[in-house]
């Protein structure tokens, strides 16, 4: 234990000495550091902080030193996290590289791949995106058709990915590709490729709510060296499943965050329909708003209960699909209800006749419709609950 105490003390000292004061304030969204070749730093301290942390291996503290990490034990990593949190230090680096690809490479990559890819990820030099879904492979992801033909020393990749978030800002992509048509899941491989390779083209997608982080990415006779295959040929589905589980967990945690910066229904209902005492004047809408607010409360309590159950080791595995399903449906209801309360004020697309919040309500309402589609549709979640939790037969 005294070793851990030493580590704690050293960590605190180092953080106090090296974390720039502007990196110890709450982080605005536009100062979040994603790294990459085209990274730009609104606040120069962001770059400084990244460099310092990366030098110490603390962008990915549990990775081995040889891979750009600090080789910390789980206990040490927890100490680091606690100390950073205590001092209010910002996380120095975000992105799919450290959260998703890194763990995959550590588990499935060759030594050469680890050496080639992990240190640049740890230093935030390469920004990664993921290429999973395709126009014909959404809920049925394993139906993907992007082909990677074996051409001796390389694969020739042809096809199209969709919903590749931030692809237009990313340097490399990790992709699921079809290397065999013999079996569905058993013909998928996991490939890394540089977005600058000839034949890769990416286009941002405009949503019904306006601009988005999503892209379509097209591959036309893209040559990918075989060294960039992770794991064995035709065994990519195993990796994909692990990553998807990880993603689903993330989405269920953010379930309640979908509403973003828009106030709660009851707050807006009071603003648009309240009397001087704040009482909502339309009794039918008051009832609907209350029903919604009560369900919000029950949902929050269920999140709390799940946390307590998890801590007590009595967790019910079915709740993650429940959170994804209910959180996203509840968020859609939230915006439909706001629209009812705010009438035409919530239906502005742009222009000065509407407040910034009113315009945001409208856009976020539209965007909310996607919540129950992305990351596993509501239908898929209900299927999962029926099968895994309730044990209903196929």
């Amino acid at each position: 234990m005294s070793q851990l105490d030493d580590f704690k003390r050293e960590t605190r000292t180092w953080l106090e000495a090296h974390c720039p004061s502007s990196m110890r304030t709450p982080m605005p969204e536009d100062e979040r550091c994603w790294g990459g070749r085209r990274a730009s730093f609104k606040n120069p301290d962001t770059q400084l902080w990244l460099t310092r942390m990366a030098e110490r291996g603390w962008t990915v503290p549990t990775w081995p030193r040889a891979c750009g990490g600090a080789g910390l034990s789980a206990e040490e990593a927890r100490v680091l996290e606690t100390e950073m949190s205590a001092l209010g230090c910002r996380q120095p680096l975000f992105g799919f590289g450290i959260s998703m690809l890194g763990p995959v490479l550590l588990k499935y990559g060759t030594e050469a791949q680890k050496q080639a890819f992990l240190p640049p990820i740890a230093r935030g030099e390469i920004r990664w995106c993921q290429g999973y879904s395709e126009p014909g492979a959404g809920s049925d992801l394993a139906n993907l058709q992007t082909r990677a033909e074996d051409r001796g020393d390389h694969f020739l990749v042809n096809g199209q990915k969709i919903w590749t978030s931030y692809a237009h800002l990313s340097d490399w992509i990790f992709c699921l590709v079809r290397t065999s048509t013999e079996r569905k899941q058993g013909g998928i491989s996991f490939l890394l490729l540089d977005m600058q390779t000839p034949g890769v083209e990416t286009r941002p997608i405009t949503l019904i709510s306006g601009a988005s982080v999503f892209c379509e990415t097209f591959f036309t006779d893209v040559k990918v060296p075989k060294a960039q295959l992770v794991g064995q040929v035709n065994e990519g589905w195993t990796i994909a499943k692990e990553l998807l589980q990880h993603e689903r967990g993330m989405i269920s945690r953010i379930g309640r965050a979908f509403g973003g910066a828009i106030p709660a229904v009851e707050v807006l209902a009071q603003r648009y329909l309240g009397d001087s005492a704040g009482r909502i004047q339309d009794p039918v809408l008051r009832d609907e708003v209350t029903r919604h607010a009560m369900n919000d409360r029950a949902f929050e309590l269920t999140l709390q209960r799940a946390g307590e159950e998890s801590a007590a080791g009595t967790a019910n595995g079915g709740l993650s699909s429940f959170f994804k399903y209910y959180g996203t449906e509840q968020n859609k209801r939230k915006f439909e209800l706001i629209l009812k309360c705010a009438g035409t004020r919530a239906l502005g697309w742009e222009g000065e006749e509407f407040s910034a919040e009113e315009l945001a309500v409208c856009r976020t309402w539209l965007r909310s419709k996607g919540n129950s589609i992305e990351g596993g549709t509501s239908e898929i979640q209900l299927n999962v609950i029926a099968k895994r939790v309730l044990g209903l037969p196929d």
Partner: protein
Amino acid sequence: MLILDDTQTLLKASAADFLAARSPVKALRALRDAGAPEALDHALWEEIANLGWPGALIPESFGGSAIGYKGMGQILEESGRVLLASPLLASSVVATGLLLRAGSPTQQETWLPRLASGEVRAALALDETPRHAPDTCRTLASAGTDGYLLSGAKCFVPEGVGADLLLVVAALGPVAGLADPVPETGVFLVPAGTPGMDCRALRMVDSRNAATVQLNEVRLPATARLGEGKPVQEALSFALDAGRIGLAAEMLGSAEEAFQRTLRYLKLREQFGVPIGSFQALKHRAALLYCELELTRSAVLAALGALDSLPVEVPALASLAKAKACDLIGQVSSEAIQMHGGIGMTDAEEIGFFLKRARVAQQIYGDAGFHRARYAALMGY
């Protein structure tokens, strides 16, 4: 009669053909992308005028085509199917309907022929609150010796941008000499460009034409008052109901089209090796939408028929039709996006236009809650 006669059936079919050819949904996209707040293809409007649609409710003596409400309802249903951006409802049904029932002979002679020909587009400036509340009117018309002075603001005027004539609803100010006068509502004909009236475009989510109107001491002659002194409340109520029913027909068309597109997608889109329309949960949800479509269709047809020939039933049937249409299109448009999956979320796919129009149409002339409350009041419970 809840079915169409041969003439109406033919009219509906030819309207469908014309609109599919001349104004498919991509026409609305083009108007949106062009960014003109008037959201009107003038050449198309001229063609529509040549078909006689703007004069559908106007007698032949004023140059109209006297198609009647039920026929007009078919045109509006088809216009909803393609999300036609036009002032057919606001000008040719609501404003025209108001002039028809309450205009003085001079007012009718002045405006009806030009409305019938499509030369003039008119709009009703009524709402002063974000949710339709026709009895809330703070815009004031003070009577002077030689006319009226209008002051106030209207926050949502459908088809107000570029309208040649606004029909402004205002409370009549206290008459000198009466201690506690009953507030009376008047409607005032205000041509575009009248000094003191400022009309600004609202960029709504449905990319259609809507405006706010400021009225700062707008000076009007006595002849600008609709009916020139006769009470107009009943005519206003009827014209609004005609607007509600016409809009319900338009919404029915939009819902029907969004539903058909969704059905096509359910049959086409495969996942797990089968069309997603073979999944029973989606089938049942589609069947529920079908039920609501059938119910709404009946309500709309009954309400259109009442406009033509059973005026006593109009208020209740207007509220029935609009309430059902609001609930229907809310449900259909949301389900359409969900069933289209990711592709439905993209701007490139047209289904999102139906969702956007749906929510604006729900608000215009009262949402489902408004009409349920009104229906209950009409029924006495």
